[in-house]
């Protein structure tokens, strides 16, 4: 029996062997790699060269901000300086790629800062792909007042990020949020605006009335928000530059809330509650053109446009529980897109247009999640006592949201997370903060 098996195997193998060998040998060895690793890319950021004594104080600070920006994404890991073999002594000095390869640096960012007598500084940088033995694009230089050194650092980091990952950065951007203080049952709230990393905080309103849900315009020059200063919720538009504000021109007896700019910067979406029923409306931010988009006995709120302005996502309890729906921008029959367990709310369309972020409540826990615009591929990124109100970074790679903590001393804080669910971080703020909205990338 064994002999028969052996002979059969021999015949089969001999029949197949030689053509196969010939085929195998007809070209180069071919392999397919389908599994890799996901880990931060090691990057070296030697301290930028101070080209004159006055630039000394900025060189170190700018370098630190750039390194913090990159490492803060979770996509990069800064190599400690004491591991460096090469020291960069001049902006134009040649890069010793072998020295950087030896410490596994895969990218190197070098730069220099010079300060002029009139208070202006210049920051220039170069990035290098160590394993390609080549620069990553041309050098780039930014100039401005010394007070804007942080913006220049963010711009350098954005450029480096973009060159390495191939997608836009988000460091030179701002976040408008609600700054909170006081006990939980008597919260004082005011609007604040800050750099994406929590620096350079400025306040846009005082704490005399409750403010909620600030939202940037697509150009970043105006903010929509809901205020209770008239005693009932009402949507206001505020000019960030002048801090002048005015209420949207809607019927005085109605309550308006949950505003959002359209991609044209002129159309405003919001919820309007009249006679106990809330529906979605749109109008021109300068007044006029009030249009009712939904007409249902249920609560429709939290609308947001798709980036191309063709569709609107919103939350509604028309099915009995709070779920997400998508409908044409001009109104029409909505399609439900959320079907998982629990309640869904505060949908926000990604700037890339491919995903919708949302808040989900299920089994007593709150989550920030993302799904495709048809509701497929739902992924929950966070889980806590209270997570809510996602907002997208300008490049659609990071989500910022509010996390509340339990108990008497519980306070809201801002957090960010990568859309992969990695790199959950707290955004530093001076005090309790909630309801963030990310600006577009600054020009």
């Amino acid at each position, binding site marked *: 029996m064994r002999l028969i*098996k052996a002979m059969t195997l021999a015949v089969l193998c*001999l029949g*197949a*062997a030689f053509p*196969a060998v010939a085929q*195998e040998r007809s070209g180069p*060895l071919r*392999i*397919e*790699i*389908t599994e*890799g*690793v996901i880990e931060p890319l090691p990057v070296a950021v030697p301290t930028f060269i101070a080209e004159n004594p006055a630039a000394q104080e900025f060189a170190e600070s700018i370098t630190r901000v750039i390194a913090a920006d990159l490492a803060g994404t979770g*996509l990069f890991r800064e190599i400690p300086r004491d591991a460096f073999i090469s020291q960069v002594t001049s902006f*134009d000095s040649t890069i010793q790629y072998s020295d950087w390869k030896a410490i596994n640096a895969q990218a190197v960012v070098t730069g220099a800062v010079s300060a002029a007598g009139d208070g202006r500084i210049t*920051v220039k940088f170069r990035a290098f792909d160590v394993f*390609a033995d080549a*620069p990553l694009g*041309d050098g780039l*230089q*930014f*100039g401005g007042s010394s007070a804007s050194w942080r913006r220049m650092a963010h*711009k350098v980091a954005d450029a480096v990020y973009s060159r390495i*990952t191939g997608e836009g950065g988000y460091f030179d951007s*701002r976040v408008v949020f609600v700054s909170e*203080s*006081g006990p939980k*049952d008597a919260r*004082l709230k005011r609007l604040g*605006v800050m750099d994406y990393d929590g620096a*350079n*905080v*400025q306040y*846009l309103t*005082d704490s005399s009335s409750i403010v909620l*849900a600030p939202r940037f315009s697509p150009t*970043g*020059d105006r903010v929509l928000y809901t205020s209770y200063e008239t*005693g009932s919720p009402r949507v206001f538009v505020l000019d960030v*530059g*002048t*801090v002048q*504000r005015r209420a949207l021109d809607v019927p005085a007896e109605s309550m308006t*809330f949950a505003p959002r700019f359209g991609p044209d910067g002129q159309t405003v979406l919001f*919820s309007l*509650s009249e006679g106990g029923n809330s529906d979605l409306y749109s109008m021109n931010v300068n007044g006029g053109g009030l249009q009712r988009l939904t007409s249902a006995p249920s609560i429709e*709120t*939290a609308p947001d446009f798709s980036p191309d302005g063709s569709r609107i996502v919103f939350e509604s309890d028309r099915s009995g529980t*709070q779920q997400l729906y998508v409908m044409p921008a001009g109104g029409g029959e909505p399609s439900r897109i959320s079907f998982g367990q629990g309640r869904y709310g505060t949908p926000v369309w990604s700037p890339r247009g491919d995903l919708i972020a949302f808040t989900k*409540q299920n089994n*007593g826990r709150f989550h920030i999640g993302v799904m495709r615009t048809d509701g497929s591929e739902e*992924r929950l990124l*966070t889980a806590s006592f209270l997570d809510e*109100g996602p907002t997208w970074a300008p490049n659609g790679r990071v989500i910022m949201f509010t996390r509340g903590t339990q108990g008497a001393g519980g306070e809201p804080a801002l957090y960010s997370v990568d859309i992969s*669910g*990695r790199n*959950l971080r*707290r955004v*530093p703020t001076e005090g309790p903060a*909630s309801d963030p909205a990310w600006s577009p990338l600054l020009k």
Partner: protein
Amino acid sequence: MILWALIGGFFLRANDPLPLQSTEVSLLTSAEFAALSVPDASPTVPSEAPQVVAPEPGDSEPEVAPTIEAAPATVEPAPAPEPEAESAPEQPQPEPAPVVEAPEEAPMLPEPPSEQASNAEATKPDAEPQPASAPRVAPEAAPEPEPEAEVSETVTPEVTPDAEAEVVAEEKPATAPEEATTEIVTEADKPSAPTASVRPRSRPAPPARVAETPVAEEPARPQSDAVVDAVAAALAEAATSTAPTIAEAPAAPSGPPLTGGEKDALRVAVQQCWNVGSLSTDALRTTVVVTVNMTRDARPDSGSIRMLSFEGGSAASASQAYEAARRAIIRCGASGYNLPVEKYGQWQNIEMTFNPERMRIK
């Protein structure tokens, strides 16, 4: 003159600096922020240097320090609230207004925003969230290595010389793979997601490749089947012995073919260094085919690496994907891949297809 014409340029060539672009950045005050963001009127960050006036301290806008509100008094724990920002009130009554000590004057917006250009560091977070397990995601899960262990593909115990031993062992440090999980575990996954799981094995080699068949099927055969083993071994030997004849064709690889195990070892070695963590979403949709020539000591000739083709993305995303592939080949081949030198003819030139299908964010 001829000599000067030939080599004179060497002495005269200037050290041309690398190209450098220049642009301007200005401090973002509120007014500038608004102005900068208006596309048509935006004077900000021009490519050519505009006159940027440094803001003077105590400029027209008064410095108003942000009011740090009083610390909240102790209150009773509240139940988990609903998302308040965007949710419509169940009963569209306004939220009860908080008890605010109304100022004597009518509530006024502050003077132009408090220019609290606090470059000072904001408050430090008091409770950092726990990072999601190991920061490295790799095909094979690996526990946290011993602190003194060197990073390696395999786990090797430390070898220290024993003075009393007859044969003194060569001193070797312990090695272990870098800590890794096999998949991204988000905060939401933590309660139920396993900390480590085994990925499915790679697809077996096609059955037509006879030289690989005995190796690939070896584990499935009964150990005691000596006759079958012997025949299979003989067949493999016969197949490999005829290989040189076939390989005599010009430009064709020579030497016996690599076994499935040898190819798997190469694949595993490269994928250890294929880091897709920093790739864009588009690049993660792009498959690239890369060719590389190898030296006899199994190191990649980095100058020979080039992209043959790509699929599924733009040229820009293909470029990013190619750079990641190139880094993988060079980094993990720096000390030479584990390839049999007697089969150099087979792996002298390698085409690697980097397919990120399974590495996409899903």
